[in-house]
């Protein structure tokens, strides 16, 4: 990993030095933008430019090699970005082509992750991973008879190591209000997020948390304590019942009622606190 080929790798294609390459790129672009060029000449110039910069695309694609997507796919998407850059580049602006190409190729790769792999937004992807995380951890723990490593989980979920770390991090990010701790293996109770019936889990961003925090703080002492025991400390309903000296049914009723109240109030206070990312 972390190979750093230098520009001579680009140049190798035509055995060019860096300066010769620069000249070559600029002359290909003048062919593309000349009114005298035939369509065939333009096509050849575009191909040449694509071929010359292919190693650069490879370099960029490798930067995303630990995200659980096939390298060939990333390469193909990157090449698409390169072709777009070639078509949109305006040499008259005095910018070097590579300076324009790098963000365009990266933009295309990011778009690919967003549309295909990340399903719209990274938080959603993290969210999805988190949903499959607890099941994967549980399965692996049983199979291996020990706690699995990040790599083992990444392999099982089909994601990269960074994604898994982020998903864990996201699960622990807001310790005062963890909205979605990993599912309790002892009790198949949905998380607080599920309980609140928020329509789109991908939208549970900072904005929702910011709305929730004051709502939780406004709850009566006992209700808040029960929510905290259930969702922060992940005690089972029966454990909470014996801790507070009330029946499990009573705990269940309080939880249901409190969650219903919260749900109602979160809908009364829509996205004022959030920004319009969604």
């Amino acid at each position, binding site marked *: 990993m972390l190979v*750093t*080929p230098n520009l001579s790798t680009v140049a190798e294609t035509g055995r060019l030095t860096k300066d010769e390459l620069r000249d070559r790129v600029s002359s290909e672009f003048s062919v593309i933008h000349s009114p005298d060029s035939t369509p065939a000449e333009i096509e050849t110039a575009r191909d040449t430019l694509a071929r010359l910069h292919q190693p650069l695309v490879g*370099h960029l694609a490798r930067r995303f090699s630990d995200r659980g997507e096939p390298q060939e796919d990333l390469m193909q998407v990157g090449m698409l970005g390169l072709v777009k850059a070639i078509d949109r580049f305006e040499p008259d602006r005095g910018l070097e082509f590579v300076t324009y190409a790098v963000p365009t190729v990266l933009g295309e790769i990011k778009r690919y992750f967003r549309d295909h792999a990340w399903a719209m937004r990274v938080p959603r992807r993290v969210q999805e991973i988190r949903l499959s995380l607890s099941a994967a951890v549980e399965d692996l723990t049983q199979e291996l008879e020990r706690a699995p490593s990040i790599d083992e989980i990444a392999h099982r979920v089909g994601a990269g190591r960074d994604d898994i770390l982020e998903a864990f991090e996201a699960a622990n990010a807001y310790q005062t209000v963890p909205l979605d701790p990993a599912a309790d293996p002892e009790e198949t109770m949905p998380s607080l997020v599920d309980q609140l019936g928020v329509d789109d889990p991908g939208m549970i961003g900072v904005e929702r948390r910011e709305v929730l925090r004051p709502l939780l703080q406004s709850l009566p002492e006992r209700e808040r304590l029960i929510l905290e025991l259930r969702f922060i400390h992940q005690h089972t309903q029966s454990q909470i019942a014996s801790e507070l000296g009330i029946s499990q049914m009573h705990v269940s009723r309080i939880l249901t009622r409190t969650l219903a109240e919260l749900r109602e109030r979160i809908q009364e206070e829509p996205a004022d606190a959030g920004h319009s990312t969604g």
Partner: protein
Amino acid sequence: MTSNFSAVPEVVELHVPADASFVSVLRITAAALAARLDYAIDQIEDLRVMVDEAASLLLTRAAVPSTIRCRYILDEGDITLLLSAIPQNREGVEKDGFSWLVLDALADKVDARLTDDGIEIEVYQKRRALDAGDTQLVDRG
């Protein structure tokens, strides 16, 4: 949501072994700090790529075994990365390679220098407003 930027620059500093397997630690830290500053996802991705490139440049030059020191300076929402290492010799950072090229294209400012302590790469990234749109459409010319 209001982002609460500190009035004075805040500095986070990490020292990791000069080994490729530790680069992800630097990368994840950068992403976490950028997330904290409410960076758009696209820009966080750019930042990760830049950490990769800068670290990769240093790794090819760092003495073995040695340490890579990474300082993240957060100033009014902008991030400056200062990565340094003890080099094998007193040659400067290679600026012909892809890594430098990518840094140059993505960063708002990038610089490499030899210091008394070794070799240092500075990458400055300005925080872009969340509604600035896709970086792909942003012409940096």
